[in-house]
Structure formats: C-alpha cells, structure tokens
C-alpha cells in the first residue's frame, strides 16, 4: 500500500482525537515527573494543526507536514513544541514530491524527523525521553523495510517497538528535560513524551493499514 495526501490527513485527524482523548493521561504522567502540562500541550497543538489544515488546505503531502510543523511550533511551546515541530519540519524536507509515498519513503521520513529531535534536544537513548520510544521504533521499521515487509507490517513493528520502549522508560532515571531535576526519584514513572510518541506511531499504524 502507498500513502497519499488523504491518508496523511486522516492520520493527523486521528492524532487530534487521540491527543484529546489522552490529554488527562499524558498530563497525569507529566505531573508525576514534570510540570503537568504535556497532555494539555499536545491537545492544544493538534487542535491547532486541525484548524490550520482546515483554514489553508495544503496542496501536497510535503506541505501538509510543513503546516503541521508551523502549527506545532507556534502553539505548543514547552519542550514538546520545538521537538515535535522539528520532527515534522524534517519530515517535510525528506518527503518526496509525489502524490503517493511508498514504504521506503515513510521510513525515510520518520528517520529524518527522529534525527531532528535528536539534534534539537541533544538527548540520547536511555535519557528517559520520547527518543526511548522513537529510536527502537525506527530500528524496527528499518528492519521491516530491509526484510521486504508491507507498509502495514512495518508500521505495526514500529508501534510495537515504541510501546515496549515507552514501558522501558519506567525503569529509567531521567537525564534530560524537567524530569531530570528529580534525580533517582524519576525512576518508577513512565515518561510522558515517550507515551505521546508511542501514540503518534500507533495512530500511523492504525490508519495506514489497509
């Protein structure tokens, strides 16, 4: 299966619902080791994305990602705004000017976006951040692609790895972001950003499967 602009827009529509539904949960996770705003930030961001896409319908897939980036950078703030904003900026830059993108393009797009998050936040795997969901997911997706799996199987593998990565943050001590101020007391809590990143991949796997 290939992904066209309607599928990309569908993914973003689903993300807006997912973050609205999980606003409370993400905020609760953030109140344990942060400042109780992550769910609120993500919900505000993707609501702004929805409004932006409705007000200025983009003509191609790459401009969809650009609009998403701009909306997130302008409306989220916090750590998540620049990080997810950079993710979509880099994804837009990596997106080929085609009406439909293939599995290899999708993986390349995630890879560019995740690299952008690494550069902007200067975190590495194990720091208890969103990267602990995203990096294992990227690994799994690349393996799937090398093995010639279908896009649906690749995204499923990504979501499963992100889920495991998200759960693995519970045992980690935070070395980056606000949670690092708590030192060892950050251990035992799931990272809110890793959770929102898992939801991002899960939504892609769920919407781009048929």
């Amino acid at each position, binding site marked *: 299966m290939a992904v066209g602009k309607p599928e990309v827009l569908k993914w973003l529509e689903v993300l807006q619902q997912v973050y609205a539904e999980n606003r409370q949960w993400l905020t609760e996770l953030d109140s344990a080791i942060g*400042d109780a*705003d992550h769910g*609120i930030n993500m919900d505000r961001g993707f609501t702004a994305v929805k409004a932006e896409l409705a007000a200025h319908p983009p003509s191609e897939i790459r401009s969809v990602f650009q609009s998403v980036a701009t909306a997130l950078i302008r409306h989220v703030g916090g750590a998540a705004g620049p990080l997810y904003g950079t993710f979509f900026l880099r994804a837009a830059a990596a997106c080929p000017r085609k009406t439909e993108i293939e599995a290899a393009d999708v993986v390349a797009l995630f890879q560019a976006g995740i690299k952008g998050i690494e550069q902007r936040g200067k975190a590495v795997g194990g720091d208890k951040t969103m990267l602990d969901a995203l990096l294992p997911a990227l690994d799994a997706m690349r393996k799937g692609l090398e093995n010639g799996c279908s896009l649906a199987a690749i995204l499923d593998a990504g979501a499963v790895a992100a889920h495991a990565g998200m759960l693995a943050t519970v045992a980690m001590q935070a070395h*980056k972001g606000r949670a*690092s*101020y708590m030192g060892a007391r950050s251990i035992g809590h799931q990272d809110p950003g890793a959770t929102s990143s898992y939801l991002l991949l899960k939504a892609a796997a769920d919407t781009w499967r048929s």
Partner: protein
Amino acid sequence: MKKLINHPQNVPAEFLAGLALAHADILKVCLDPVYVVRVDAPVPGKTGIVSGGGSGHEPMHVGYVGKGMLDAACPGQVFTSPTPDQIEAATRAVNGGAGVLHIVKNYTGDIMNFEMAAELCQERGIEVRAVVINDDVAVEDSLYTAGRRGVGVTVFAEKLCGAAAQRGYDLARVEALCRKVNGNGRSMGMALTSCTVPAAGKPTFELGEDEMEMGIGIHGEPGRERMPLLPAAELTARMAATILADLPFRGGDEVIAMVNGMGGTPLMELYLVYGELERILRGLRIRVARRLVGNYITSLEMAGCSITLLKADDEMRALWDDPVLTPGLQWGI
C-alpha cells in the same frame, strides 16, 4: 479547583487584557503572536532586553516590562515556555538597532524555543545574544541532569541588565553583565503546598499537613526531598547554608538578597523569614546591601518561599539603584 477565572483555557489571554488596562502608561500587549512591550519601544540606539517564560510566575516576566527593566516579555501558557514566533516578534519590536539580549531561564523548553527564535532573528539580520540563568542550588549540576534551573536570579538579571541598557551599555557589555550576575547569584526554594495549573484542574502534587518539599522550582514540580515541616528559623538556616556554601559567599561580602513568596504565603511570614536570614548573614559578616521581600517570582498559589543571594559589586549596586518603572518593581521615578 477554586480560582478567580472564567474558563481555564482563557486565563493567559484574559489576565493580559487586564494587565494592559491596568498599566497602559507603561506597557502594551500585542496579540497574534502574544508579547508584552514597553509603550515607547523600540528605543533607538538602546540595547533591547527580552525575556519570557511560562505564565503563572507573575509579576515575572510581564510585570517587569517598562523603563529600566525589560523592553518586552513573552508569556507562554501557564508553566509552558513561549513559542519561537512570539519571541521573534518581540525581539523585532524592541530592536532599536543595537541588538537584543535574551534572558533565558534554564529549562529545556525555554532553551529550545529561544534557540529557534534566535535563529529566525539572525536570519532577519538582528543581532541576538542569549544568556541562560541557572542559579538553583537545589539541582545537582551534572551531565546527568538538564542542569540547574533558572529561578530568583532572573529577577536581579532583568533589573540590572535593564538599568545597564538604559544607561547606554552596548550588547556585549550587557551580555557580560548578565553573565556576571548569573555567576554570582544563587537561590533555593521550598514549598508548603502544591499549586493547581488552571487547565489541569487539580494540584500537581500532594503534601501532607506536616510535610514540606525542599528544593522546589517554580512550576509545581516536586523538589529535592520531602521532609517534616521545620520551624522557620531552621528551614531558613538550612536553605541559607546550602546557598552560602555553593558560591561560596564569604565574610566581608556584600549581597543583594531576596526573600520571595511563591504566591500563597503571607508577607508576614516572608518578613519573618527575612529576619532570620539577615540575622544569619550578619553572624557571618555578610552585609545585605539591598533587599527585596515579597512575591517576585511565583508559582501560582503555591505556599512557600525562596531565598536568592547575589554577591554584589559597586557596579551592580549602582545599577540596582537606577530608576525603574514597571508594574512589578518601581523606584527612583
């Protein structure tokens, strides 16, 4: 949640509308993107001073906009850093041709948003320097944390850099001053209660009747340790000892001191703590040259206080006494 609000989502916009009406002689509020700016900005030839951060810490930062302090402040959502477009617009609005200093508190979100804004400003040919304030001794400064948080010293940096820019310091000199202030100032805070972010609707953490949280920041995040509540004399001594040992401050030093309320503690208690603090400092032959006692960098309705000490030299003392006219700080005018 019991607050004087209409709708949790509208709190930032609605409080700014009130601020603009209350202080129309000093500042104005620009919308889309949101920033608060001195009425007479840009001041030609003057180094611009811009800061910003989450809302909920008032009077910081929006209450420090005005003559002799900030040219503009960018308020984010409650406890959430402002966005790059706000910071870029504010920087452009105050640039009088001499460049602009960004005073940034050390939080991951603030750092990244100010960095993205500085990149945008530089693309437009505006010279921007950023100084990161990281004075909170409660956080271990190591490779394994995001580093020390920016807290009380931010108020001092904004006052002193604002005065310096008003005197005509160029960007490089204001930047150097800001680094000197940050390098010589230390803070620590404690909480008696948590606080409630309006959009979250319930307290960020729970504290028992006989407990306190030592080493908190300004976002309702938990602190360094939870412990039984101590008498004011003892907790002041503990906070002072941690601050004094860190720089370290020595006998013969002169300091500018602040006993700051977190938002929900009466002035009566803040003066009581100040009394304890000055007594301790006198015992160590550290002279308090200037002081602030009150709510200057708050955490919504949190009860508790923070102590900030800045080792001051003649330059800082003189700049401190310069006139300032902002909603949150005014003298000499």
